């Protein structure tokens, strides 16, 4: 199914934390709002990547 080891997904974890926190902190001053924004960003990016994965996986089933 996957052509690479699932452990490569570990590269994703520090990146999503960093990107989400920096995105949040460059849009708010209040720490609670920063964390909320970071959480929303992390969910959005993860969801978007999940959709892309699902599409590619589905295509791979027919090729």
């Amino acid at each position, binding site marked *: 199914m996957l052509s690479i080891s699932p452990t490569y997904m570990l590269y994703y974890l*520090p990146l999503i934390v*960093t990107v989400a926190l*920096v995105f949040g*902190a460059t849009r*708010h*001053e209040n720490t609670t709002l*920063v964390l909320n924004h970071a959480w929303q960003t992390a969910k959005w990016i993860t969801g978007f990547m999940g959709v892309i994965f699902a599409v590619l996986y589905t295509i791979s089933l027919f090729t």
Partner: protein
Amino acid sequence: MNQEDNNTISVDGELVDLRNRPLAALLAWLIPGAGHFYQGRITKAAIFFTCIMSTWILGFAVGGSHVVYSSWEPGDKRWHYYLQAGAGMISFPAYIQGRRMDDATDSFTGETKSDYEPLWDGLMAPPVRPVIESDADEVAAWYAQRGAGYEMGTWYTVIAGLLNILVIYDAYGGPLSVPISGRKKDEVDADESDQDRE
């Protein structure tokens, strides 16, 4: 409106004094978070410093400490460096090493001279020239040693540099977009004066 008013913004119900904006932006570039520290935005300074520096250093380590170097030679146009340098001072050794390598490169043959010695035990030094994509040169050896780590290390350091560009902007002008949580101080003042008139 005087200069002090121009440098004070209201975001999330908090007044933020951006102080000397160009200086803050410069500090933010040199050391991620330093511009915010200078402005007294300590929590954000800590977030930016921790996130960006750890991502950059992690990428540098995962890539075997060879992912950050400066080179613009045929076969080795390292455009990534311009983005990695967004993280500031931590990328400066690569620039110095790159200049030294340029000086030590034979302009006619494009090969590194035999008397070339990199500084600091080769930290952030470019590969020995020439670098030819189809040949087993030094870059190929770095790839072979680290595999996906070399690619991921490159992207980690690039992303860290790109994120710091957002941070530099935040230090200069305040939060990128101010959705519903805050507005510029002059807009708030204008609204308040309108309400007073009513």
